């Protein structure tokens, strides 16, 4: 049975860049949520195989082992994970790539570099999206 992801305050963060990872972790904490942090897409995939108790997920688009988009595609095929909204952090503002990513199920993009305010707005939109569905 799928977990009701609206009740949890856990946010999955996967990024191989330690500076961005530390930044996003703090920003998520400041929003009152509990970050669950892994270092790459492979670790996110392994965690999601057994744990679906997340209110949202934040992935870097380009990670070793498994790209953010591949982890997200896996999530969209699993009933227990498909309602979890996904924010993709990217430094590539390629419109075709973004269109393909939205089609694959990305909820929202956060372009790098980003400020505290930009993260906060995007994060709130991410979580609102889930409540509307």
């Amino acid at each position: 049975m799928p977990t009701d992801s609206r009740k949890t305050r856990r946010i999955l963060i996967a990024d191989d860049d330690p500076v961005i990872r530390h930044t996003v972790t703090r920003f998520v904490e400041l929003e009152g949520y509990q970050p669950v942090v892994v270092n790459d897409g492979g670790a996110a995939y392994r965690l999601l195989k057994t744990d679906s108790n997340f209110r949202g997920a934040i992935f870097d688009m380009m990670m070793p082992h498994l790209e953010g988009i591949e982890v997200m595609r896996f999530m969209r095929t699993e009933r227990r994970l498909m309602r979890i909204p996904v924010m993709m952090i990217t430094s590539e503002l390629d419109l075709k790539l973004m269109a393909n990513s939205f089609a694959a199920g990305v909820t929202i993009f956060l372009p790098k570099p980003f400020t505290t305010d930009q993260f906060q707005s995007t994060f709130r939109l991410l979580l609102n999206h889930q409540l509307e569905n």
Partner: protein
Amino acid sequence: MTLTHTETQAVDLAVLATYDDAQIEGEPDFVVELLDIYLNEVPRLFDSIRKAITNNEGITAKRAAHSLRGSSGNLGVLQMATIAGELEHLENNSGASATELLMSLENEFERVKEILNAERQRRSP
């Protein structure tokens, strides 16, 4: 081939100052934490790029340059972000141009380290 970059500011300290909004009272200085992570991470990325060039592994060099561009940009380390972006988007990420850009990055990092260490010292004497 000689590569040229448009000269930009080494570090925009105003960008770093925006992270003061994320400071939690009673916790260590958040900006100092970010600077420490960055100053440790950059030599590791240089090493990764250097090895990738030696072993002709373009994709590894591209990934490391991508990571360097992202973290530099987010901390306002502007010129490093620009050069890392040039390296990331080279057609051949492990060729002669990549070697030249890596040298530019290493030279720039010497300048950046002085600025960031001074900022670190100011915040955490």
